[in-house]
């Protein structure tokens, strides 16, 4: 990567071009990502699905600037991931809520605004950036169903409420892109479906780009405009599926035939890539 902007970058999309990531060296070498190309348009909800170890989290961390590709380019709306972080364009929701246990819910979600306060000015200088008003955190918390939990400590919340707090915190900086790494994997099925609905509501209103890593097929179908199917050893994208289901997508839609149709397509892709991987070891 050279300069501030990566090759082939535009202000209207996140683009990853022939990205390679290798862990270890010599005999222990493990190719986490091998020539991955992705383009995510501004405003899209894109899920990445695949078996464990297919590099989906690595891909997400690469967009977040937490990992550097060994080859290839990553651009977040026309700038490098590092510069995107400096301008607070990225909101991260990790697998655990990662809240600060000594702060109550309201203070936790307000914390990002106190950090790196020069970012707002930096953000204005980036081409194509949409200036949006700072959301009212109390308002956003209430929309996420946390209206009576402002003053509660994280340890006093259920797992679902903690994860909703983490989501509101990420939305709070008005990021250009929200990166979510299996945020609901520790929740039970029922809570998970309820939170998916709340996430979609907030997303719809905030109009943010979301990249969502998951290993649940129904979750990917319900949330996404586009699903990227990945396969392991080496990690690569084997299919892109556009989910053309209408929005808003309620919980009732989970039972419809159209919904199952898309689930089947993705399952087929996952199985194909799984079998391709299994073959060499059988022979």
């Amino acid at each position, binding site marked *: 990567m050279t300069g501030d902007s990566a090759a082939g970058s535009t202000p209207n999309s996140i683009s990853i071009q022939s990205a390679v990531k290798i862990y270890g060296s010599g005999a222990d070498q493990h190719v986490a990502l091998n020539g991955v190309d992705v383009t995510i348009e501004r405003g899209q909800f894109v899920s990445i699905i695949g078996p464990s170890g297919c590099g989906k989290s690595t891909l997400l961390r690469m967009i977040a600037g937490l990992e550097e590709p060994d080859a290839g380019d990553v651009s977040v709306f026309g700038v490098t991931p590092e510069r995107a972080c400096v301008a607070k364009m990225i909101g991260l929701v990790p697998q655990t809520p990662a809240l600060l246990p000594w702060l109550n819910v309201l203070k936790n979600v307000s914390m990002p605004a106190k950090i790196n306060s020069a970012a707002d000015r930096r953000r204005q200088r980036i081409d194509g950036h949409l200036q949006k008003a700072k959301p009212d955190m109390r308002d956003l918390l209430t929309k996420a169903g946390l209206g009576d939990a402002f003053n509660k400590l994280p340890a006093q919340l259920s797992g679902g409420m903690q994860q909703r707090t983490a989501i509101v*915190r990420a939305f709070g900086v008005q990021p250009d892109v929200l990166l979510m790494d299996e945020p609901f994997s520790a929740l039970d099925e029922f809570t998970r479906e309820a939170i998916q609905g709340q996430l979609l509501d907030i997303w719809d209103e905030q109009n943010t780009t979301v990249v969502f890593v998951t290993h649940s097929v129904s979750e990917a179908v319900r949330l996404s405009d586009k699903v990227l199917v990945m396969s392991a050893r080496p990690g690569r994208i084997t299919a892109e599926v556009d989910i053309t289901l209408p929005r808003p997508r309620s919980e009732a839609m989970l039972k419809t035939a159209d919904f199952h149709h898309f689930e089947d397509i993705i399952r087929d892709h996952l199985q194909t890539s799984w079998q391709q991987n299994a073959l060499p070891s059988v022979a």
Partner: protein
Amino acid sequence: MVLMNPTESAAVVDAPRAEQPLPVKKVGKLSPRLAFIKPSFWLPVVVLLVALGFLWNFVAKNNPYLLPPLSDVWGALAHNPSYYVSNAWSTLQVALIGLAIGFVAAYLIAILVSELPLAKRAIMPLAVVLNVTPLVAIAPALVIAFGFGPQPKLIVTALICFFPILINVSTGLRSVPSQVLQVFTTLHASRLEMLFHVRMPTALPYLFTALRIVFPLSIIGAVVAELSAPGAAEGLGTTISIAFSNSQLAVVYAAIFCLAVLGSALLAIITAIERRALHWHESMLDNKS
């Protein structure tokens, strides 16, 4: 089996519930704050103390050079209470000022060590050597160097408090969960913001673990220094060494009793502060439920 219609089955299920009141949690359970009122709380330790007191007096009656009778110890205290109070105050001052010096030094070095790997490699081996060197052995050397004033006492106390704080705080500053670090890295938090908003609060439980060790230790440090400086004017350590040279066993034990009270009081204070400062921490929430 005859199928019941829904209303009937509901009635069958509801009926017994309406008659039996919901089980009520036993009333009369004291809040944890008042639990010490109950005999089951204080009786065991009181019984043991009384038994030990009788044993002590029995031994003291037959071997007056081994232990002084408790009445003599009490007599020593009651005869001249201001003597003990002023000496205890002097020891306490040395202990707390020495502790404060050790705390500031250890905390600053802990930050340095946790932020700069190079500093860690330079400082930690020296800190470990300092820790394994018996301070009782260093104290006389400091008295020779600095005389009988407060300096050697403060240095010994600060040194004894230094290591537990350094080790615990430097570990605490480094124990931020990786996913929290990732969230703040994507926000491009500066090192200073990271330190104040994330690392230092994360290290707080570790700090209090150190303080609970170090508060009583500070008394030990002060007394060791006083014992090593026989010419020193005041302090319970000095009281002990003067009484020792006069073979006043009762006075020695009276001073030891004062030291035990002082140490317990400091421990109680730090525990109370900890309960306030760490009210958010799992260990505290656990006790509440």
